[in-house]
């Protein structure tokens, strides 16, 4: 039952993405930027999906520390990995856009820098996990670090913002004149990303649970 639901969600996400790509390809080019503008339909939704992942990872980490249930630890690590992939997609799409519009791949602008710092923080989370063998200690320390990282993110964003910003002001939901169907395309893309994120997280979650079972079986086998 759970398998079928997962496959179903995955298929819906894929179909939705395929539909969005077709629809967005059909939009007219933006007046100043041309076709490259359309990258924003992916750039913004993956950033939002990454933020949702960070929030879910915080919830998983706090719940683990409160309940000591390894399910939450598995959730935290799965969702962090997926979020890291989303954030990487956000950085890459932004970089491609920057190369075309600004002529440079990267600039040390506020948003770019803070996104990179976030990426490094959560990559550090995964590295910390890799370095700890003992499961309970790994889960506890990782949860503590995840909380630290999450608290740091707003401070990073806020402080780096004080530098002059080169990143364009928000296009969606930022007070501009955007056609209604463009909003819809962006929203549907966000939905597709979130669905994709859920499917990937659940797959990774099962992997994590299977891994823990294997580990405990191995320990039992060694005990005899």
């Amino acid at each position, binding site marked *: 039952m759970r398998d079928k639901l997962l496959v179903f969600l995955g298929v819906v996400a894929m179909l939705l993405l395929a539909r969005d790509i077709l629809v967005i390809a059909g939009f007219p080019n933006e007046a100043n930027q041309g076709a490259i503008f359309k990258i924003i339909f992916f750039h913004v939704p993956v950033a939002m999906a990454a933020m949702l992942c960070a929030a879910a990872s915080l919830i998983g980490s706090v719940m683990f520390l409160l309940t000591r249930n390894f399910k939450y630890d598995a959730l935290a690590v799965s969702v962090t990995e997926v979020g890291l992939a989303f954030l990487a997609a956000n950085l890459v799409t932004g970089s491609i856009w920057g190369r075309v519009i600004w002529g440079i791949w990267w600039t040390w602008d506020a948003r770019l820098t803070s996104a990179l710092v976030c990426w490094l*923080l959560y990559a550090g989370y995964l590295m910390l996990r890799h370095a700890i063998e003992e499961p309970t200690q790994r889960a506890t320390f990782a949860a503590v670090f995840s909380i630290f990282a999450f608290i*740091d993110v707003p401070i990073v964003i806020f402080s780096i913002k004080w530098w002059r910003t080169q990143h364009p002001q928000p296009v969606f939901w930022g007070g501009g004149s955007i056609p209604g169907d463009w909003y819809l395309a962006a929203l549907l893309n966000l939905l597709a990303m979130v669905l994709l994120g859920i499917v990937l997280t659940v797959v990774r979650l099962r992997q994590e649970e299977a891994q823990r079972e294997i580990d405990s079986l191995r320990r039992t086998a060694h005990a005899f």
Partner: protein
Amino acid sequence: MLSFFRQVLVVTVKDLRAELRTKEAVNASLAFALVILLMFSFAFDPLEETTREISGGLLWIVFAFAGTLVLNRSFAREQPNDCLDALIAAPISGAALFLGKALANYVLVLAVELIALPVFGIFYGVHWTDQFPELLLVLLLGAWALTVVGTIFSALTVNIRLREVMLPMLTYPILVPALMGAMQLTAGLVNGKPISGDSFSWLKMLIGFDVIFTAVSLVLVETVLVG
């Protein structure tokens, strides 16, 4: 409540005494700071005007690198003879143990900074004495940010593989806001600009960072030490 501060003090004095007898962390840290200062002289022309402008940044990179060496030893020192287990089993709270260790680290990190600062001033022609009280305030706040985050992560990484690499890997990204604030303020001060207007909000940010991370560390340290 009084006994809490006494417990903190006992841990601090113990750590400082252990460090002053061997001087391993402080010596390594100072030597390392000197080596980085030397390396910077090749990367940037030391007497160029532009180097003066980025001197605040250079100085804090030296402090962050050298400070990590001190912080790395903080909990690692307790590993031989299972001293860490004994400390955790001692009838004091995790918060007292953490605060005690953090204070000892703070003294050591500050000592390294205060020795490295004149050396930096001599080698790079930086006028650090002009506004020393303000500069000292920035040093005190920045060093505390470095110490509090470094100490809790030192506890986090004490018995894992690749400890020496993991501590800076985890600490520096978290410290980005604090280091940025300290760099901006220091660069302004050594170039003769007093703290005002824009740089005042950096000072507030630095204080906020210190307060938030001290509070969070005190809440979470029990979890880290006891599990």
